[in-house]
């Protein structure tokens, strides 16, 4: 390189400096610009917080499309869109957008009389035409929705008159009415929401529903504001607006709540057990715990040699103090479960099973009887020279499963059973369960409004894990037949008897052990009243909620 004259050098230096300075100025000004632009929006949205309930949710609410799944959040979808039938306490199915319905004797034809006073949030009326349009769109993507039993059974849909809609099935399927209460996909989008080609699986043009709330403002990953639907046909919500802030971190949710930025936090595992207890004992806030939404179960794979003996399975159940474990691990936020499905679900309240209470002596006797003896000087039982060793798989991201696994490990060690606990990722846990590559595993059922038929169906179907896990049941074939028969029953009494037999048998044979009932939690400020958990696990809890400020 040629040495430049001093003049040139200094010029070049100056221009470099100028570039550097202008670059910095540019960066700083964009930074500031970004701030000021957004601050304007923010101040307007915070203005009327008096009539606004603010809550935090871990994820963005997603696209408000009633006909698809992830990433849209169920509670938010349920604020905008409504079902024909609603699921209420104790598993009662109440009229919602359908005023009443008739089911034909053969259980194949469902005729719905629709409410006549319902309007979509854009003013268009709700009628049989739009119901059919929604159904037909959903049925175009049967594969997407085949998990919901009745969808695969639909033969055709008909508009009888303006407010009468008829659904015809290929075969009788009793859970149809119950499945109509789920949050998606059978909820109703207004005409204006359909895209040009009518295929909602790719997106909707506008979130138009009949529900009590309308999406007013939405900023992905930041917040969503719902305003009350002033023309709502049912009970008008007491608060004017609901703001959902996206706060992914549980501790930050608690801090924001303590500061007063939030009125409400609720959900399953919405905040840590410690934080919940701390907020509860502080006395400055209100808290509540829901009815059971699902059962946490321990599944034993009877295909594995050491677990194929009923006596071993029973011994393991007698051998741990369930109540102490559940109370200790969950700080009382979950409740010891005696049945594999919560008893507040349909057909689950009348189940007669042999109670298994904590009894170490009995557990030891059963193991002795089964041939697993404790050799002198050793602390693990053996049979034909093989030690009694079992592996328990748990979701490593779930602290409750981990703590319970550790408790079982120490409790069963006292019986002479060596429990190896293995923490795996959730996807691995599901895959290994499906592939029957496990000995013990945690599971929880789907909850309202999906059960009991979905759980029983999963037990009966191949490829989900349970079907293979109950291999050693002596009455397995009979059980599977009963499970296959249940959905087609048309007689209420017969159905109840079948459910009772199935659930009793599943539990008495000891492959599915109820551990605890999972519950939702909520914490809210003192000025919030009428907070009530909905019976439907996925539904929003904002009906009737109010703030006195």
């Amino acid at each position, binding site marked *: 390189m040629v040495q430049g004259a001093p003049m040139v050098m200094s010029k070049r230096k100056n221009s470099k400096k100028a570039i550097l300075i202008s670059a910095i100025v540019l960066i700083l000004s964009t930074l*500031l610009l970004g*701030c000021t632009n957004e601050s304007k929006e923010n101040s307007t949205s915070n203005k009327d917080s008096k009539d606004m309930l603010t809550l935090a949710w871990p994820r963005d609410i997603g696209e408000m499309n009633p006909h698809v799944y992830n*990433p849209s959040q169920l509670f938010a979808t349920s604020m905008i869109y409504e079902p024909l039938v609603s699921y209420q306490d104790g598993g009662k199915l109440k009229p919602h957008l359908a005023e009443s319905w008739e089911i034909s004797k053969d259980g194949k034809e469902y005729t719905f009389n629709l409410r006549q006073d319902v309007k979509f949030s854009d003013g268009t009326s709700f009628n049989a035409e739009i119901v059919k349009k929604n159904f037909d769109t959903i049925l175009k993507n049967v*594969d*997407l929705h085949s998990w919901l039993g009745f969808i695969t059974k639909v033969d055709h849909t008909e508009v009888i008159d303006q407010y009468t809609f008829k659904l015809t099935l290929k075969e009788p399927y009793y859970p149809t009415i119950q499945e109509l209460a789920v949050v998606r996909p059978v909820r109703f989008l207004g005409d204006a929401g359909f895209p040009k080609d009518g295929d909602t699986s790719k997106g909707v043009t506008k979130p138009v529903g009949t529900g009590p709330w309308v999406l007013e403002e939405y900023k992905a990953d930041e917040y969503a504001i719902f305003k009350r639907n002033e023309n709502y046909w049912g009970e008008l919500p007491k608060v004017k607006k609901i703001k959902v802030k996206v706060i992914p971190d549980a*501790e930050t949710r608690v*801090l924001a709540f303590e500061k007063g*930025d939030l009125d409400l936090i609720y959900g399953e595992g919405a905040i840590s057990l410690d934080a919940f207890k701390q907020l509860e004992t502080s006395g400055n806030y209100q808290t509540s715990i829901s009815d059971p939404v699902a059962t946490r179960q321990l599944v034993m794979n009877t295909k594995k040699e050491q677990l194929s003996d009923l006596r071993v399975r029973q011994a393991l159940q007698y051998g741990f103090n369930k109540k102490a474990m559940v109370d200790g691990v969950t700080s009382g936020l979950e409740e010891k479960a005696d049945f594999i499905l919560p008893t507040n679900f349909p057909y689950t309240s009348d189940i007669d099973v042999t109670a298994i209470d904590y009894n170490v002596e009995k557990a030891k006797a059963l193991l002795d009887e089964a041939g697993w003896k404790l050799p002198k000087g050793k602390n693990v039982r053996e049979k034909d020279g093989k030690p009694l060793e079992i592996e328990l798989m748990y979701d490593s991201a779930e602290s409750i499963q981990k703590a319970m696994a550790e408790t079982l490990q120490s409790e069963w060690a006292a019986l002479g059973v060596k429990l190896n606990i293995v923490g795996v990722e959730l996807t691995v846990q599901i895959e290994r369960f499906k592939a029957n590559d496990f000995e013990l595993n945690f599971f929880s059922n789907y909850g309202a409004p999906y059960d009991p038929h979905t759980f029983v169906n999963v037990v009966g179907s191949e490829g989900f894990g349970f079907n293979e896990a109950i291999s050693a049941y002596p009455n397995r074939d009979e059980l599977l037949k009963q499970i296959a028969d249940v959905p087609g029953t048309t007689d209420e009494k017969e159905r109840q008897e079948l459910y009772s037999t199935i659930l009793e048998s599943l539990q008495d044979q000891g492959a599915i052990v109820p551990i605890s009932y999972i519950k939702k939690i909520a914490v809210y400020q003192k000025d919030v009243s009428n907070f009530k958990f909905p019976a439907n696990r996925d539904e929003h809890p904002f009906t009737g909620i109010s703030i006195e400020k």
Partner: protein
Amino acid sequence: MGTYILKRIMAIIPIFLLATLLTFGMIHLSPVDPAEAYLSAAHIQSTDEILAQKRHEFGLDQPLHVQYVNSIIKICQFDFGISYLSNKPVWEEVTYRMPATIQLALGSIILAILVSVPLGFLAGIKKNSGIDHFSRLLSFFGASIPSFWLGYLLIFFFSVKLDLFPVEGIGTWQHLVLPSVTLALPLIALYTRLLRASVLENLQEPYVLFARTRGIHEKVIMGKHVLRIAISPMITGLGMNLGKLLTGTIIVEAVFSWPGFGRYFIEAIFNRDVPVIQCYVLLAAGLFIFSNLIVDLIQMCIDPRISRKGGQSQ
């Protein structure tokens, strides 16, 4: 100088190709089947038929080299595919979240520079003075405290107790303060120490002695000569961290609910959203390459000896 820049830019191409090859290989070595991942993200029960159909749709049934070439062509057009989770183009989702992350990264870098340059420089020229001890204390603290914990502490004291800043979210400059401080503190710790060590080293150099014997004012020696040369390792460090900041603000974004793309990618990882993960890895590679280039260019401006050697010093 021109040829040097050109050389550096040309060198990016093979590095970038290598990065794409690695990401491609990584995705194909992973036990997760993208078709299966797609179905589970969409809550569709996977039957063999649907799986085969999806594999065909994603082009997974083609030979590997064809898949690779196709993916390169698409990447060149900024087409990273469709997110399994949201059904939207990945690039659209990423660019939507990019400004927030850039804002946070710049905020913390500016803060880090504003604090660590004077602090490190003064600590170096006034060794064992009060300010040196203070810088040492701050560095120990900054280097050893985990960022999520620092974030919670800052929220607890400055937001919940003193009510000076908002707990979370984005919007005003006040929203930027706590997350920037959280991100900047480890950087401050690092750069202060780097600069201090470098200043001390340079003070031993003969040119300082010559300058002093020539009677040049101490302030000029320090400000114009020592600082200018001593700052070089710090700029390198900054460049390395720029890539890290733009991609690695995940924890801070989660703690402060900052709607940036670190959070978006964490979600993608949990849901096995393969196209998003692929895009992230490539983007990270691109950012690291790019920020290193920028750093080299800045260093060249400050210390022209680098380009005179024709880039050999790299």
